[in-house]
């Protein structure tokens, strides 16, 4: 009964256009109102208290810090240097600029933790370049969106921090688990570029000499080093995930201001404020979801869902398939962080009871939700690339279909071959 109230109010308010976080909070209050032994005053106090508890987590401070580090790196001129290095490596292939887009997005994923940052940073350089060389605008846009979706898959990753905090899973293990799936998706997208280049005769760029490759490597080196510092710091136990994010911020400032000299001190206050607002978006949602998660747990709802699901089948492969479909569908309605925050607390206990590795499941969940960032109606990245390329959302939506297909194929692959995710974390002793 109380769950029905929750769902009806939540979906009704959301459909009417109430911001998701507020719709969730009100749905929680409505749910609390129909729970018999809970007075309204207690419910309201509980609401405020759970909001506070949801935000007051040291690990979650990694979210604003990773977002800030990525923004500083972008403003500090890192994206262009990564693109230069990538183009020296793969530009000579047929459809060279397409390869460069994918590879530089993979590099940039190592300094940024979110898909929209990655898409904007790489897209603003690569989409105009591809259009100048005669690539169709919608394809250039769709490819960039797909490459940008690697942002949360290749570490660092804001989504993995949120998942790790919810499921009490090691952030380091999740970060390591993202490498292989990220690389496979990157290779898949490159395969797509190759096929398109052959079909549509996209040009290749001039080959670059070894000396120039080395020179460009050194110019990009400091940016390429950032994920090594972040991951190395966490694994060696030198810093926690949050501290590593703060170190990444300091590193980005040093590079941008003193070495690349493209970041000015006067820009930093604005970037701090922007980052604060973007983080507040995610955190306020986490806060209201913490309240609803508490009510659901109080009513033993996740257990009930788990029992129902497991009564359909105890076969992990079938449950994983159902869960993947659910997450892909959720990605069609909800913004990615919102989907993770709402589904995580329900799905994680189910996976635990099935004996599925939570690191494996976390990476699967991040990949399936990242797919939602590149297709309509709510895909952030699609809107970014549509604006950057001047191609309409409708044309981008069609062009993105093969990109989505590649990503869904990789999603199925990593779902059913857990070793692809777990090989790197295991190697480091997780």
């Amino acid at each position, binding site marked *: 009964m109380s769950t029905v109230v929750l769902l009806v109010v939540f979906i009704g*308010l*959301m*459909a*009417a*256009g*109430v*911001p*998701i*976080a*507020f*719709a969730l*909070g*009100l749905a929680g*209050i409505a749910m609390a109102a129909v729970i018999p032994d809970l007075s309204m*005053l207690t419910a*309201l*106090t*509980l*609401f*405020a*208290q759970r*909001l*506070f508890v949801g*935000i*007051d*987590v*040291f690990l*979650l*401070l990694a979210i*604003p*810090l990773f977002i*800030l580090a990525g923004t500083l790196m972008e403003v500090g001129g890192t994206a262009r240097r990564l693109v230069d290095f990538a183009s020296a490596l793969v530009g000579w292939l047929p459809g060279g600029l397409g390869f460069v887009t994918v590879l530089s997005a993979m590099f940039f994923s190592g300094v940024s933790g979110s898909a929209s940052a990655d898409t904007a940073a790489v897209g603003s350089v690569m989409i105009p370049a591809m259009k100048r060389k005669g690539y169709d605008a919608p394809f250039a846009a769709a490819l960039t969106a797909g490459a940008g979706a690697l942002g949360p898959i290749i570490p660092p990753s804001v989504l993995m921090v949120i998942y790790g905090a919810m499921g009490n899973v090691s952030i380091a293990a999740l970060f390591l688990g993202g490498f292989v799936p990220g690389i496979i998706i990157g290779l898949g997208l490159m395969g797509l570029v190759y096929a398109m280049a052959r079909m549509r005769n996209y040009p290749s760029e001039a080959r670059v000499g070894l000396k120039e490759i080395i020179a460009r490597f050194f110019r990009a080196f400091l940016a390429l080093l950032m994920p090594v510092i972040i991951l190395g710091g966490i694994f060696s136990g*030198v*810093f926690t995930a*949050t*501290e590593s*994010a*703060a*170190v990444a*911020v*300091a590193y980005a400032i040093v590079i941008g201001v003193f070495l690349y000299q493209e970041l000015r001190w006067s820009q930093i*206050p*604005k970037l*701090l*404020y922007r*980052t*604060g*607002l973007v*983080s*507040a*978006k995610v*955190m*306020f*949602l986490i*806060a209201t979801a913490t309240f609803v998660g508490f009510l659901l747990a109080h009513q033993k709802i996740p257990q009930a869902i788990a029992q129902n699901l497991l009564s359909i089948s105890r076969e992990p492969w079938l449950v994983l398939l159902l869960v993947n479909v659910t997450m892909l569908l959720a990605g069609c*309605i909800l913004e990615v*962080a*919102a989907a993770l925050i709402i589904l995580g607390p329900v799905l994680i206990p189910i996976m635990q009871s099935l004996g599925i590795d939570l690191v494996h499941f976390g990476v699967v969940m991040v990949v399936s939700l990242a797919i939602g960032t590149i297709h309509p*109606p*709510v895909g952030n990245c699609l809107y970014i690339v549509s604006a950057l390329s001047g191609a309409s959302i409708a044309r981008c939506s069609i062009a993105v279909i093969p990109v989505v297909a590649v990503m869904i194929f990789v999603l199925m692959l990593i779902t059913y071959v857990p070793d692809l995710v777990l090989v790197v974390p295991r190697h480091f002793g997780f």
Partner: protein
Amino acid sequence: MNELPLGSRLVRLLAATERGVIGGLMAAIVVLTLAQVIWRYVLGNPLQWSEEVARYCFVWVTLLGAATLLRVSDGHPRIDTLSLRAGPRLRSALDVFSRAMVILCSIAIAAGGLRMMQLHWEQRSPSLELPMAWIYVAMLLGPLLGVFWALWCGAHGNVEDEV
């Protein structure tokens, strides 16, 4: 600029204050977390209180930011499919409804926040012994600011940050 009515000027001042406070708290989070690393490894003398203060700063950033997000066009994530397709009358009805719901939810948080302050008036934070009321008051002020922005922007349109 000077021809603007007093209300608009005050609103711009309020928006500028928000930018300053949120930016300042973010800077504090970066500095405190870095200081924690430096004091532990370089000075060999771990700070006990930095983590606590950084967390409380983030509580403030979240609750103030949640209010600020109500005055800008790129605000809280929402599903606007219906209102984009609606005619002008339905669209304005949906806008009013959505604002009313945001205000209702904000008042609920503010009420709960007030109650938290009452219940924990004497409580001190574990390491610095700050009065917890200073932190819980964010749950009162943030939502009230949000109510103000929801009403103001409903009447006068969004207040964007001039860049």
